[in-house]
């Protein structure tokens, strides 16, 4: 088991997400940065959907109560194992009593902790991704013990990779959304010329952007939205829906982020800037 000494700012258990329930209004959930999840699970030679911890902004302090192998990816939160600094994108062996802790956030916003075999947690509608009220908890809590299967011996075929380039990218690759044509030519120009700043209203449901691109008065019937859909409110604010975002919405859908662009945005925090690029 993994004993949570302190949970950090916002640490959740996530996997691929909850598929096939959108038609009943259930958000997909799952890791915000799928690329980082993919990398930790690949290095640990886990199934792609093995559950990981998504660590936001400040890290938890955790103690391993059985031996296994771990890997971190995504944001750099200056991790250390028993107070010795360790690297992201590298597999480490842990033994009973080892303490993993984190320091200063130096790059990105969300870090991912994977463990050999994945974390075992309450499965709801085929996913362990934490989303209240489907799961009882919205994040991990102090004193909690997370389950994993001990692993004594594992020889990683690849012990380290370098793929951090996307963490600091500002380019958000998009395709046009269904209602892009409601924009005037000058609004459309702004959409691709302005640098947009991530507002303080950003979380697993949505990222709001500070700069507005002018009003619209388009009214439409509620229709499906996806993680990565860029909606526009009547007063011109842009909202990028993320993994815990609602499944339907009534605001015009201007753009759709690529899968990689969702991962890039998931690594941004309030005040960071981005730019939309047509793919």
């Amino acid at each position, binding site marked *: 088991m993994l004993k949570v000494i302190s949970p950090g700012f916002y640490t959740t258990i996530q996997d691929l997400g909850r598929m096939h329930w959108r038609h009943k*209004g*259930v958000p997909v959930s799952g890791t915000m940065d799928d690329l980082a999840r993919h990398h930790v699970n690949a290095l640990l030679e886990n199934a792609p959907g093995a559950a990981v911890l998504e660590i936001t902004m400040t890290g938890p302090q955790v103690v391993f109560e059985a031996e296994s192998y771990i890997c971190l990816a995504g944001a750099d939160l200056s991790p250390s194992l028993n107070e010795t600094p360790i690297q992201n994108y590298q597999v480490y062996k842990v033994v009973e009593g080892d303490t993993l802790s984190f320091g200063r956030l130096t790059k990105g916003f969300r870090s991912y902790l994977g463990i050999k075999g994945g974390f075992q947690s309450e499965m709801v509608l085929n996913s362990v991704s934490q989303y209240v*009220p489907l799961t009882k908890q919205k994040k991990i809590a102090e004193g909690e013990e997370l389950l994993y299967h001990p692993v004594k011996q594992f020889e990683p075929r690849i012990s380290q990779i370098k793929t951090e380039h996307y963490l600091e990218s500002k380019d958000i690759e998009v395709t046009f959304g269904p209602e892009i044509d409601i924009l005037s030519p000058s609004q459309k120009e702004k959409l691709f010329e302005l640098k947009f700043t991530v507002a303080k209203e950003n979380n697993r449901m949505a990222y709001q952007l500070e700069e507005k691109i002018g009003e619209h008065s388009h009214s439409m019937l509620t*229709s*499906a939205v996806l993680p990565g859909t860029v909606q526009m409110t009547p007063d011109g604010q842009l909202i990028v829906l993320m993994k815990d975002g609602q*499944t*339907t919405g009534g605001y015009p859908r201007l753009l759709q982020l690529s899968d990689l662009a969702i991962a890039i945005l998931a690594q941004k925090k309030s005040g960071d800037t981005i730019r939309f690029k047509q793919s």
Partner: protein
Amino acid sequence: MSQFPITLKPFGKNAILLEWPQRVDEAILLDILAYQRFLQTQLKDSWEMVPAYNSLTLIQIHTHFDQDKLVKQLLQWYGEAREAIRLQHYLWKIPVCYVAEFAMDLNALAETLGLSAEALIEQHTSYAYTVYGIGFLPGFMYLGGLPKTLEAPRRKTPRLHVPKGSVGLAAKQTGIYPQDSPGGWNIIGRCPVPMFNANSENPCFVNVGDKVQFVAIEKAEYELRKIEAEVGIYTPQKQDFHA
């Protein structure tokens, strides 16, 4: 079979949006659902399909597919003659308790609408509302067919906490809050049956295309139904109807 002009648009790389004419119309909804049923026999199970009002969104996230090719195929299928699909839908009789402690806005709203509270409840329970979509929150139904006499503006100040099961009215809509959430609708009662229960074999018994009619119940029955629904021995009454 192609009753309506439809348009198809790629929606990102993982989805295709099919749109019918932009209006709230049961004939359109049923045509969408019939086509969805047809597509479920043609496409792999890995496709997710989200119908709502005048649209159907097809989503496939883990497998690459040729968008242009599929768009052409979907249009061709829609245009071809297909066997008429008989859709099985239900009219659900959903119990609602309209007592004062659950109906925070009932009296004020009745006054705004120029009705007595009894007349408001009488009207609210007289219509079968069509489920045009499920979204926003797990188990939240977009219901259509509210009589004009019950159309009222949202509350000026939204509540930070609307209890799960609350039944509300706002503009052309009525509905049930499936979980505790903030909200600006006028609250006129509470439903004891969870509209989404992840622990149930069928977490959300209502489907898009079904109809919902509210039935007024007393507080004692509310308490009983709430317990029965929570332990899983009560599901609201339903009547068949064929669309």
